[in-house]
């Protein structure tokens, strides 16, 4: 029995030795075979390149796991765009306040004449105020989305701000396209008299619009108003195009396209908003008898002489000044056919 056991052990050893001789020992396994996703997760962690894969979802960028430019955009938006936008608004408001303190309210030199001249038709005023209302709603909701995080979270809390921001976004998205109609209509009604007159406009600019000294001659619209008109039209067009691209992301826009147009939209809108502060101030509180012009359509004849003397010379013969207190027929009723 012992002999049999011993023989079996010897045979097994011999077989084992032969097997080892026929099959040389392999190298120890590579680390990658132990953790097959290591490369992928290293890419995910490092975020220095787009990580793409395969997917059944058919949309631009659907195969990108980590969009590196998105993180760069987020950092740019949080660290540069938002602070710079806030600073631009604060600086412009400060300049307006400074101007008010230095120059005060600018009164009519000769007071009111008691006579008035038709300056804007009803259609022109409706177009102006429709654009102004939409601009205000879009500006407020846009600023809420851009800067609200800094100012509203401390007041309403994170959840409250979430609700406000969601509401602002929907309002902004749905009212945005209406602004296209309003701005286009405004452009059509006002473009004719805003075509630059290089000589007169340059002189007006060189004299600073007459705000700090000698009188500056001006036609129906002075160079400052023309600059605002063309800025609002051109930058407004940029806001509209970029806004439509952002509003309707169903035409194959990629993430980088959306980021670019988001950048254009924000910058252009901030430019419009800060310049509009100047327009609003000049049109309301800065100059005596100015706000009523866009309110009623009529301007005082002394106002016309002081601020738009070249235009006054043109219309004083064709337009009969009328007593201010007398009830007047609606200006739009007379001119609506040529301005609608």
């Amino acid at each position, binding site marked *: 029995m012992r002999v049999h056991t011993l023989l079996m052990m010897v045979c097994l050893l011999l077989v084992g030795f032969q097997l080892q001789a026929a099959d040389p020992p392999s190298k120890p396994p590579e680390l990658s075979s132990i953790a097959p996703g290591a490369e992928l997760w290293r890419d995910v962690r490092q975020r220095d390149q787009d990580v793409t894969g395969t997917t059944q979802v058919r949309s631009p960028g659907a195969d990108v796991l980590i969009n590196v430019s998105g993180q760069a955009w987020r950092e740019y938006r949080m660290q540069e765009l938002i602070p710079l936008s806030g600073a631009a608004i604060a600086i412009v408001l400060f300049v307006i306040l400074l101007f008010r303190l230095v120059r005060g309210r600018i009164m009519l030199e000769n007071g009111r004449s008691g006579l008035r001249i038709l300056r804007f038709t*009803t*259609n022109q*005023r*409706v177009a102006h*105020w*429709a654009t102004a*209302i*939409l601009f205000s709603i879009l500006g407020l909701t846009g600023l809420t989305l851009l800067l609200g995080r800094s100012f509203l979270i401390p007041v309403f809390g994170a959840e409250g701000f*979430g*609700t406000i921001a*969601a*509401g602002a*976004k*929907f*309002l902004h998205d*749905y*009212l945005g*396209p*209406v602004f296209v*109609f*309003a701005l286009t209509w405004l452009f059509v009604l006002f473009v004719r008299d805003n075509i630059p007159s290089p000589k007169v406009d340059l002189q007006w600019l060189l004299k600073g619009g007459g705000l700090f000294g000698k009188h500056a001659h001006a036609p129906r619209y002075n160079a400052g108003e023309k600059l605002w008109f063309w800025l609002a039209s051109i930058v407004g067009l940029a806001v509209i195009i970029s806004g439509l691209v952002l509003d309707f992301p169903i035409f194959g826009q990629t993430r980088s396209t959306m980021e670019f147009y988001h950048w254009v939209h924000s910058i252009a809108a901030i430019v419009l908003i800060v310049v509009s502060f100047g327009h609003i101030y000049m049109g309301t509180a800065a100059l005596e008898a100015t706000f009523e012009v866009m309110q009623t*359509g009529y301007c005082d004849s002394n106002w016309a002489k002081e601020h738009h003397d070249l235009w006054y010379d043109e219309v004083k013969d064709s337009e009969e000044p009328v007593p201010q207190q007398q*009830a*007047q*027929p*609606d200006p*739009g*009723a007379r001119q*609506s*056919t040529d301005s*609608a």
Partner: protein
Amino acid sequence: MIEYLIKGPLWYFSLAVFCIGVLWQLARIIFAAAKTDLSVARGSASGGAWRNVFSRFVPHREIAPRIRLQVIGGYMFHLGLFALLFFAAPHVHFLENHLLGFGWTPMPHWAFIVAAQFAFFGLILLWLRRMLNAVSRLISTTDDHIAAILTFVVMLTGCLALGQGFHALNLLHLFTVELLMIYFPFSCLMHAFTFIPSRAFTGAWFGRRGIDA
């Protein structure tokens, strides 16, 4: 508590005020004592009524250029609002689940966006025209302004309510709708129900007398 109030008692109260108020106003008009016309008819009253109902959809050629803004703004607003009210998906679902028990195919999202643009721009144009035109401003009443502003607020909150995940925004929209429903029967907004009978009555009167207007 607020949610319970808006979705419960206030909703049923506003619905009751709206339905009873509208029926009461219509009954007042229908059963108003009208003098019997003893004159010999020179034309068809019913023909005049039908003609007037449809001919008033287009302004007279003589005044059309002067009221172009009202016509364009009016059609934009009313068609846009009609489409939003009866064919926007959230409204169709609401009517089906809370009022009628049946629904219909809502309009696609692109049509919803177009209708919203028309309604908003039209209402802004009409209200500004009312404010900035000397004659319109003179003949406008407080009721006209309240009705326009309330309708605008309901449309604005409707935009906010599109964020379905934010319950407070939905409640805000429902609340403003309830305010509008309570105000509706006692205001100029009743023209939504009375403009056809009013045209028909005037047209019948004209038709019977042979007036071509």
